[in-house]
Structure formats: structure tokens, C-alpha cells
């Protein structure tokens, strides 16, 4: 198992070439995305808890429900992102006359999320350290809620966490290039475009958000 993971990280071309010899299986990719979803859910619960202090005392009984919804939504979002990424890559690869089924694309994209589990494992303690000491005063004015939220999200800790996530996303993208090349029978260049364009746009949007929020 460890050898397979190392192969995926260090020699993804060989890893996916070997997978192409086998029948499509979504079990392991699903587990990968699910574990990533668990980390995302934990991060969502961590970041939601301090904001719940802004809720008026009368609505305090809804706190556990809100936290459960946040965690569930984060988990679900990871699964949805898996499918969305696969669809985007599949559609773009059609431009380059890619061949191969969607299930194989979905499988390889799922493997590609593995580096992001490491990224989540790195950013989760940062989020925990930040939000654990965070004291958010009760705010009744909706305008103040937005102001406080913006101030909290502009914290350097969270901005570094975003950058770290972007780095691990780039690592995933590197794996996805090899995965798309094998699953859709694309040239290296076309696979890089298929993956690089949407991921690049996403990365740019994240960096733009950082600059816009005043970070760095």
C-alpha cells in the first residue's frame, strides 16, 4: 500500500499505467475523497464554532445543528468536488479528442486528491490554533457581522493556510495530468492543458482573493 502511494506521488505515470491494466474501481478513490471530506468537515466545524458566538443567545440551541450541517456540507462538498473535477477534465479532454470512459477519469481524479489529504492534515492544526484562541464578541447588527467576519478571515494564519492548500492542489494537479494522460489517452501537453486551465483559474482566483482581502 505504501509502495503504491509512493508510486503515485513520485512516479504517477507508472502508477496510472499499471492501473490501466486493471478494471476500473472507485473504492479506493472514494475512500481517499471521503478521508479528505472528513478533514474538510473537521475544519468546517472548527471554523464555524467561534462564529456561532455571534448568534444571539436566543438561537444558541441551534448551535449543534449548525455545526453538524457545516461538517456534513464540507464532507458532501468534497465528494461533489471530486465529481465536478472529473466532469471538467473529461469535457475539456473531449476538445483534444480524448478517449476513455468517465469512470476511469473519475477513478484517477480520485487518486489525485491524495496529496490534499496531507495538505488538510497540515492546515487543520493551523486552523485549530487560530480558532481555539479566537474570541468573537456577540454581534447583533448584521453590518457588524460582515465586518467581523472579514476581519477574522483576513488573519495571516488563514491566508497561509489557503496558500498551503493551493500548493497541495498544484501537487494534485500534477498527478491529475498523468491520470488524464492515461485515462483519456492524451498527449502530455494536452493533458497538462486539460488539467492546468481549470486548476490554474482556481489558483488565480484564490490568490486574487488573498490579495483582495489585504493579505500579504
Amino acid at each position: 500500500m505504501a509502495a503504491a502511494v509512493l508510486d503515485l506521488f513520485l512516479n504517477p505515470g507508472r502508477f496510472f499505467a499499471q492501473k490501466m491494466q486493471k478494471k476500473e474501481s472507485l473504492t479506493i478513490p472514494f475512500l481517499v475523497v471521503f478521508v479528505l471530506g472528513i478533514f474538510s468537515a473537521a475544519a468546517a466545524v472548527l471554523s464555524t464554532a467561534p462564529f456561532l458566538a455571534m448568534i444571539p443567545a436566543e438561537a444558541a440551541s441551534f448551535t449543534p445543528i449548525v455545526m453538524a450541517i457545516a461538517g456534513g456540507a464540507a464532507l458532501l462538498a468534497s465528494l461533489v468536488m471530486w465529481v465536478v473535477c472529473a466532469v471538467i477534465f473529461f469535457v475539456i479532454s473531449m476538445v483534444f479528442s480524448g478517449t476513455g470512459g468517465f469512470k476511469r477519469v473519475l477513478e484517477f481524479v480520485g487518486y489525485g486528491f491524495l496529496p490534499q489529504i496531507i495538505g488538510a492534515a497540515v492546515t487543520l492544526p493551523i486552523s485549530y490554533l487560530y480558532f481555539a484562541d479566537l474570541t468573537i464578541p456577540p454581534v447583533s447588527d448584521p453590518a457588524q457581522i460582515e465586518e467581523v467576519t472579514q476581519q477574522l478571515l483576513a488573519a495571516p494564519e488563514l491566508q497561509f493556510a489557503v496558500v498551503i492548500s493551493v500548493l497541495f492542489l498544484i501537487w494534485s494537479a500534477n498527478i491529475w495530468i498523468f491520470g488524464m494522460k492515461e485515462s483519456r489517452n492524451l498527449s502530455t501537453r494536452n493533458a497538462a492543458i486539460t488539467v492546468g486551465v481549470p486548476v490554474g483559474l482556481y489558483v488565480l482566483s484564490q490568490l486574487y482573493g488573498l490579495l483582495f482581502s489585504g493579505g500579504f
Partner: protein
Amino acid sequence: MNYAVCVLICLLCMAAAPAVALQITTTDALDPASAAAQVTVTEKTIDPQVLIRGDRATVTVTVTNNGDVSVPITRAFLSDASLSIPVDSYDSVGSIGAGNSMTFTFTVRVDVPDGVYYPRFSLNYRSAPSLRDYIPVKVESTELDVSVVKRPDSFSAGNRETIELRVGNPRENSISGISVVPVGEGVEVEQSGSFIGKLEPDESANVSFDVTPQESGTLTFHVTYRNGFNTHVLDHTLPVVISEDKKAARPVVSNIVMTSSGGVYTLTGDITNAGLKVANSVIITTGAPAAPAEPNRIYVVGSLDPDDFSSFEVNFRADNVDSVPLLIQYRDEDGNSYERETPVSINRTAASEEEREFPVAIAAVLIVAAVLIAGIIVYSWKKKA
């Protein structure tokens, strides 16, 4: 015949009796000096007994005819070269009957230095030497004694203090209608005045006033009293100088720690009463340009005894400022409100240093991750080649 003689004798006697009586009376009236000698001064009074220079007094002289015959009086008068006597003479007195008394009243004014004066009372008779007597009038201008027996060591603006006066009567006679009225600019006195009434010689009475000065000035006590029917006013002035109360409560803030999170600063510290009096209702908050924020916009410490201390925590928001004022409000035992302001520097807080260091550690993680990922990516492409 005998009857006729007896009746005649009786008639003669009856006719002769009035003539004999008239002859005896006429014989006595002819010695007016003897009759006047029976008239004496039986009482002489002066009210008030002891006068203050400028006072008016009532001098009353009573004469009694101790003889058996009335004595005609032509004039009664009082005279003195020093004293002023507006109406000094009774010009139509008439006779004073045997065994009767007659009272003569004069008003005198004593615009003279202290001492004892002896105005002369004279009673002139029609046919006899005058009767003369001297009436002592004592002038002694010692006034009431007013002294402060209790006052604070120092006055504070808006701080109520008690001033106690003692009014004593060092005079030989009693003084009546004594009242004390305080007047002062910039000084509020709770009592509009205090009435003492009558003080016998060597007696004293205490009166208290609760004063609240707003600024430095003088507090004057108008002491009004009556000596007889003469009204006098005595002013006693007390300087009121606003200064720091040496024994007052003195809250001191120490051990200040400030942290910041989400734009809200949390300021914690200790407050100690370094004064000698208790500080009541101690409240701590922040002033402009800081804006107090939840959850501790205001921190109520409560009562702080001398040398006692308490911890506190306040929250506030502040943008682009180097320091914020920490406001400490408290009251003394009389309910007077005080406020102290302590500037707290935002830059010197350990929290901000910690905030600066923490991202550096994360940045190190970021750099390591970036290098690692870049290495892996490069390595994976080399393997592919």
C-alpha cells in the same frame, strides 16, 4: 337751758375742728425739703446690662416717695457728656403721692470706647434741692467667639465635607437670637443656616455644615446675634482651597496584558487601591478613540478597600491608534464620583508580538511544503522522462 348750752358748745367745736386741721396741714407743707427727703431711687436698671460700642440701651429709674405727704416734682432728667441721650428729660412730672413710686425710662446710645460710664439722674423739686443719682453703664465690645472645631485636611472638587463651628459667648451678659448663615461662591452648602438661640455667659454651642466645593474660594459664616435689641453681625471666613485629598482612594492599574483577536482587543490587568480610603463602585472601561466591545464593555470591580486589589478584563475596538485611555470610575463613602484615566499603549503588548511571530512559524511550514512539493513534481517528471 343746759341743753341749749351743750348744743352751742358742740356747734362751736364742730366749727373749730376744720380750722385746726387746716392749720396743722399748712404747718407740714411748709417744709418741702423734709418731704423731698423721703423720695429715694429704689430701682435702676439698664437693658442690655453690658453694651457693645454703638448699642442703644434702655435706662429705667424708679423713685418712691416713702413719706406721708405728696411731693411736687418739676423735672426729671438724665445727663452725661459722653453718652447720647435723645430724650433726656421729663418736663411735666407732677407730684408723687405718699407711698407711691414713679418710673422714668431713658434711651441712651453708647458711641464711646469701652469702659464704665455714669450718667446722672436728677429729680428736681419745686421747693427743695434736687435728687441726684448715678447709673453705671458698662460698655464692653467683646464679640461672640467663632472657631472651627472640625474641618477636612483638604477639599476636593465635588467632594462633600463637614465643617463644624463652635460659637461661644465670652461676654458678661447673655446674647440672644444667634444664627449662623454660610455664604460662599463656588461652594455648595447643604444647610441654608443654623439657629442657636440664646447663649448665657461662658456658654457655647456647636453647629455643623455639609459643604461641597466646586472650585477654590472662601466660605463666609454670617453669625447674627442680638444684644438686647441691638442686632450685630459677625463674619467668620474660611478659605476653601481645592487640593488632592491625602487620604483619598487611589486606584492604580498594573500588570496590563493586551491581546487582539478579530479586531477586538482584550485588555486584562490588576487594579489596586493605593489610597487610604475605600473606593466604592469601581468600574473600568475604555474611552475614545477606543470603542468598548462585547463581552466586557464595562467591567464592574465593586468595592476596593485600601491595599486591596482585583483583576479585570475589558474589550474594545480601536483602529490606527497607538494607545487608548483606560477609564477608572469610582465613588467615595459620600457617593462623590471620581474618574481616573490611564493611557495604555497598544504597541507594547505581548499579544501583538506573539501575533507577529506565529505567522512566521506557519510561513516556515509553507516554505518547506513548497520546496517538498516542487521537488516531488520535478522528480515525477524526471521519472516520466
